[in-house]
């Protein structure tokens, strides 16, 4: 499938949401919700296709997301760093982001729009299906004027203790 078609489809989705909802928070919320719906399904495809080994730590999971999942679905490899001492907060820095290829800047009046918020929902949904609750947000966004695009993943807790299937 053509990459342009994918990028244009995503752009059309965001543009339509912007027309449907006046507030940026609403658009961000619905993007996240859609992403969540994708993530809970995508995880099965990911696990089947990648045949990854069991992960034993949050850091391994974050590496897996950045180096395997992002690579598989978007063709990019964000760099991962752990940003707190407890070891449950990670930051993924995206050097390239194909979703924003054709978007130069956010339209006027949409300064708090998280254009790629779908990605946050996808990660959150996927992690939930393997019994990990996580908060995923954009810490920095090039479209908003920051230097880099940075996604923050905070692992909250395991959803059930017994028989956890880890990635």
């Amino acid at each position, binding site marked *: 499938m053509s990459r342009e078609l994918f990028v*244009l489809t995503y*752009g*059309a989705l965001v*543009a339509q949401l912007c027309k449907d909802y006046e507030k940026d928070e609403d658009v961000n919320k619905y993007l996240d919700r859609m992403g969540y719906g994708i993530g809970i399904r995508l995880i099965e495809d990911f696990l089947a296709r990648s045949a990854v080994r069991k992960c034993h730590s949050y850091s391994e999971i974050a590496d897996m997301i950045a180096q395997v999942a992002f690579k598989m679905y978007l063709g990019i490899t964000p760099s991962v760093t752990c940003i707190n001492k407890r070891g449950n907060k990670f930051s993924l820095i995206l050097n390239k982001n194909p979703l924003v290829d054709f*978007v*130069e800047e956010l339209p006027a009046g949409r300064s708090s729009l998280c254009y790629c918020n779908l990605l946050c929902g996808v990660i959150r949904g996927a992690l939930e299906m393997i019994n990990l609750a996580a908060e995923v947000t954009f810490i920095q966004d090039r479209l908003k004027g920051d230097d880099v695009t940075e996604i923050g993943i905070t692992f909250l807790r395991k959803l059930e203790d017994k028989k956890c299937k880890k990635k």
Partner: protein
Amino acid sequence: MERIALLSPVCSPHLQNYPLYIRSVPTENELKFHYTVHTSLDVVDEKISAMGKALVDQRELYLGLLYPTEDYKVYGYVTNSKVKFVMVVDSSNTALRDNEIRSMFRKLHNSYTDIMCNPFYNPGDCIHSRAFDNMVTSMMMQVC
């Protein structure tokens, strides 16, 4: 003094010809260039219709020199979606060759395509893109 006026009036097939983007270097006499561009649109339309139905498939996008005058030469380029690009160049600039003009139009066309792919750009809006401005500036600096 070298002078290039780069103007890209484009039109949607449904509406009148109106400019989506106009740029000239240097900027004095801008009104004169607006007028020149407007009159050259007639020549563009003439060239397109002169090709006739039989040749529509083979019609090149680059229309070439539309008409020369004392002070300047006007070149045209039309995409298959009827978007028109017009370039006005000082006649004294003899160093500019045909294939350079062709490649400039191609760059313009490519940048225009990128703008169209921006989900927040509505076809028919005026073009306010930094990337497009930068591309045009560098192109004009190269020639001036």
